[in-house]
């Protein structure tokens, strides 16, 4: 007890004697860095990425970066490409200063390294080889439709739920994004990866690389910006003064 009291009292005495430890004293780390000197992954991720990709990489509206399968699927160069220059066909903006964004190359390196450190897991595919990240075959619409009906429709064709065939949706996501999500899945919202077509996680027959390419090709064929733009402005502008 006495030792505890002394242990408690000592810092207090030191604090009073030292004055440098008063609550108002400033630590060197408090002094503001130039925005381009911020290299802490969490600060960078929380200010630049998490609004779309979710706190800690999960549950955001955009791609689940915290999914270890995603981290295993995408290589550093590709990540750098998307972060720096944005991802064409999606809302992912360009963050590199060279492309009109706010981040330096060193900061982008820090983000990539941080993601790997936080979210990568070894041997996440358990020996199975996923279809390659980049499409390397040509797809077939007909086959894709059949595969889609057989493997995806049971969830995605439920009325008013998860309809990925909406032309507006398909206009807003590129083929690569579709492909990535089919392969890596989204563990946070119950989208299975390529190896499990059962959302509960029970093993099903894996999709082959060709299957994935076919489905993406089929979905791509439904993409029709013209169909979306047909929607007219509903209220007559003359209501405005």
């Amino acid at each position: 007890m006495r030792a505890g009291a002394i242990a408690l009292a000592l810092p207090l005495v030191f604090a009073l004697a030292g004055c440098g430890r008063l609550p108002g004293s400033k630590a060197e780390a408090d002094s503001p860095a130039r925005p381009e000197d911020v290299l802490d992954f969490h600060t960078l991720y929380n200010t630049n990425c998490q609004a779309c990709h979710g706190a800690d990489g999960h549950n955001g509206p955009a791609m689940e970066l915290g999914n270890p399968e995603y981290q295993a699927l995408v290589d550093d160069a590709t990540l750098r490409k998307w972060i720096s220059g944005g991802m064409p066909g999606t809302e992912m903006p360009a963050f590199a200063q060279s492309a009109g964004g706010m981040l330096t190359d060193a900061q982008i390196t820090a983000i990539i390294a941080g993601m790997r450190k936080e979210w990568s897991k070894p041997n996440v595919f358990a020996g199975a080889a996923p279809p390659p990240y980049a499409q390397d075959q040509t797809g077939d619409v007909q086959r894709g439709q059949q595969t889609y009906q057989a493997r995806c429709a049971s969830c995605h064709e439920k009325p008013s739920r998860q309809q990925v065939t909406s032309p507006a949706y398909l206009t807003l996501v590129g083929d690569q994004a579709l492909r990535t999500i089919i392969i890596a899945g989204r563990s946070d919202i119950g989208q299975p990866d390529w190896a499990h077509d059962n959302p509960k996680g029970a093993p099903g027959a894996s999709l082959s690389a060709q299957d994935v390419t076919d489905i993406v090709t089929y979905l791509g064929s439904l993409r029709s910006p013209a169909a979306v733009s047909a929607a007219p402005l509903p209220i007559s502008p003359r209501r405005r003064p």
Partner: protein
Amino acid sequence: MSDQNDSQQRTEPDIETASEQASDREGPAVVSRRWLLLKAGIALNGLVGLALAVPVVRYLLAPVRKDSSYKSWVSLGDANSFPVGETRLVSFKNPWTQPWDGQTDNVAAYVRREGASQFTVFAINCAHLGCPVRWFPQSQLFMCPCHGGVYYADGSRASGPPERGLFTYDYKIAGGQLQIDAGQMPSLSNTAKLVNISSPATNSGRNGDCGCRG
């Protein structure tokens, strides 16, 4: 001179008291000389003061100069480094500097390239109260952090308190370099000129506070 006069009189205290008493009763004859000398002393001081004040005022007003004498052409780099259709943040060294300016001589501007040789160079200062606006390429808007002024990509006012669009710099392309006429913090007092010289394409878009450009 007046000091001498004073000390002379102090050596004769009797006379002084006598004359002081006299000044109350007697006529101005005795008094006037002393008062005249006092007035002369004041006038002399006034004159010297005025002579000294002229250089002081000139010194104080030294920074008040014509805008054009502060400005000169500054290069923002290779004109082709700006992609067509995009807006980029650039920074340059202020042409009017002192060695002890430190970081304050970094000035930023937004360069918007509309065509092969069509540019608009915006000052980063919000037209409301001069805070630095930020460009958001996704929504194609400039937003001001201070009082919420928002501008469209062409610099025209979108919403918020500003009365006008963003200020622009005069520009030219010389030897492949994009150059702007800079050197002065843009503000409402010196930008009537800046507006005139901006390229006609941007003026057409600057239509006051109508937010209905859908």
